[in-house]
């Protein structure tokens, strides 16, 4: 399983060359990433509108988020972006063992992210720091507006969390194909495409973390 130079490029019928197929797939993925950014863009806009309308409330409410856990997750995700790149690099060098290792590490990181997120959410549920009508926290000074902060917090991190879960599924599928011997220096397009997706998930978190956890 160490070397796999025989994994040939599965050229689809309607493409003339592998180059054309690779270029088309990458362009399609970049366009999809653009739609993802716009999807989150709506939530970033909502965040901006309410952060502008109630700056004091947002400043107070964000103290209920745990910066240490948020920071841990940021590091975990950044590291997982590195391992995806290493997996692509290994595929280019035909080192399939390293492809499998790095993809596996990425999936472990993604799972670790979700575990940390679970503890964060559990704490919020416990303290009644929930969106809308479920908001029951009594210690916060302005609950009528503070619930909007937590509404936006859960929407943004929740939508991001869904993307992490989809990422785990996607990377697991790629991992299984790598074990099967589908990839090598001739063909590693699916790893690259999934990697692009995983970087997006990472980049969105890079914006979520300061906006939600580090308000000044």
């Amino acid at each position: 399983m160490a070397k796999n130079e025989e994994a040939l490029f599965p050229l689809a019928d309607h493409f003339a060359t592998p180059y054309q197929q690779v270029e088309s797939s990458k362009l399609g993925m970049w366009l999809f990433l653009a739609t993802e950014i716009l999807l989150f863009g709506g939530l970033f806009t909502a965040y901006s509108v309410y952060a502008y309308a109630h700056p004091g409330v947002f400043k107070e409410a964000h103290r209920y988020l745990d910066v240490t856990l948020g920071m841990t997750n940021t590091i975990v995700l950044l590291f997982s972006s590195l391992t995806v790149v290493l997996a692509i690099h290994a595929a280019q060098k035909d080192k399939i063992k390293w492809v499998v290792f790095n993809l596996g590490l990425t999936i472990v990181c993604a799972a670790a992210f979700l575990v940390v997120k679970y503890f964060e959410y559990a704490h919020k549920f416990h303290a009644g720091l929930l969106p809308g009508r479920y908001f029951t926290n009594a210690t916060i000074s302005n609950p009528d507006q503070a619930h909007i902060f937590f509404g936006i917090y859960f929407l943004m991190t929740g939508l991001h969390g869904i993307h992490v879960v989809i990422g785990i599924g996607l990377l697991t599928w790629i991992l299984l194909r790598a074990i099967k011997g589908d990839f090598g220096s001739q063909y590693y397009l699916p790893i690259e495409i999934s990697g692009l997706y995983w970087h997006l998930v990472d980049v969105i978190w890079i914006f979520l973390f300061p906006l939600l956890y580090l308000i000044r």
Partner: protein
Amino acid sequence: MTIYENKPSYLNEQKGLTSWLFTLDHKRIGIMYLASIFFFFIVGGIFALLLRTELLTPGKTFLEAKSYNQFFTLHGTIMVFLVIIPGIPASLGNFVLPLQLGAKDVAFPRLNLMSYYIYVFGSLLAVFSIFLGAIDTGWTFYAPYSLQTQEKVVMMVTAAFILGFSSIFTGINFISTIHKLRAPGMNWFKMPLFVWGIYATSIIQVMATPVLGITLALIVVERLIKIGIFDPTLGGDPILFQHFFWFYSHPAVYIMILPGMAIISELITTFSQKKIFGYRLIAFSSIAIAIISFLVWGHHMFVSGQSALIGMIFSALTFLVAIPSGIKVFNWVATLYKGSISFATPMLYALSFLFLFTIGGLTGVFLAVLSVDVHLHDTYFVVAHFHYVMVGGTFMAFLGGVYYWWPKMFGKMYDERIGQLGAWLVFLGFNLTFFVQFYLGSQGMPRRYYNYLQQFQTLHVISTMGAYLLGLGFLVVLINWIHALFYGKVAPANPFHATTLEWTHASSPPIAHNFVRQPIVTEEPYCYGDEPHHIHGLAHKGA
């Protein structure tokens, strides 16, 4: 349908229902879209006829007020999300685009089939929600009413959300196809103008639809757990909903009209047998419309409470849209000048488009004027305006396009006389229905009202009669198509002497892989030479 037995084509290459349901062929997917879209068009059209019938008299004619509210919502929602937005790109775009580019298929055939099934699933969910409790919010789902009504808003909104994915995937597919799968020699300025129009449309589909997605998701969350984003009683802002909604839905208006313009560019040049006037200007004006479309959404909100300054900026930006639209219309008219014009059925629709779109476009400029809009906002004037653009513009082009590519799609000719009759009925019925609505609106008849003053009744009756005539016209069109499918004469490869690849290099209907040999493009599209053919009806020999 003997022709299908004789020569190999995409229609007879594989047989049986499953060969259609699991096909990856862009042509078959296009045909399936076409059938589905016209099915939902009939559903939406029936709601329209019921509405117009109810409006024959002030007060109750035969519907309760609540049913009336539900019916106009369903008419709008079905026509917008199930018919006109997917309409031309998903059906004709799917069929024609790869052929015009000289490609074997779209870039991602499996994604293409998936977006079809997403469309079907979303559409069925929308129709299913009608039986559980049809929504009554209007197709715009404005908060806070959409947060309060007892009807199945969540289900309908989820359906629209799902349909959005279909639209996004189609857009991604087409952009990638246009960038990467053009035939050797076909540079950007050798592409047919239909391709340019679909390209501009796809950009809007990809860039605007996700924002609708998140907006509709927020409506669902707001209804389910009262999160307080749009609901003013929870500290939310209903105006924010309008901003979000129109940030998508204004560009969506251009998702609807740009493919119509794309078809018109093909029809005008083919049926004038003359090189299109101002190719690059038409191409770039499509892109210009796509870009400006993102900057004008606030003109829906002149009376919603946005600041006067913002209103002025949006008004000025809205005027800008008239420039690329005007460029197109003038170029089409210049193409007609000294052309060898034939009044075959597709051309009748193209000329209808020129008349009706011009009226629809110019009345749009009236509405962009801040002071005039205060008077006309939410009246029948607005209803007439957007029907002139959506039906008079897009739908005329759609019908013209289906007639034009019919011989290519099915290898059969349509009946020219029934075709002309249908085109005239549609044109007259349409104008009768909607022209009076400009006057109704300017006199103060508000849109979406169940009841009205006695003085408006005559005009409402005229409008309803027009709607029946329009319905009859569509019926004639439908009969002609079904007739052509079974009894149409065998179509030659290039019955209209067009110059784009789907006519010059592919048979009618094309083979499964489109071309026997990879076409190589050496000249610009629309080179008709010095002695153009004169197409008189369909009485001419094949290519």
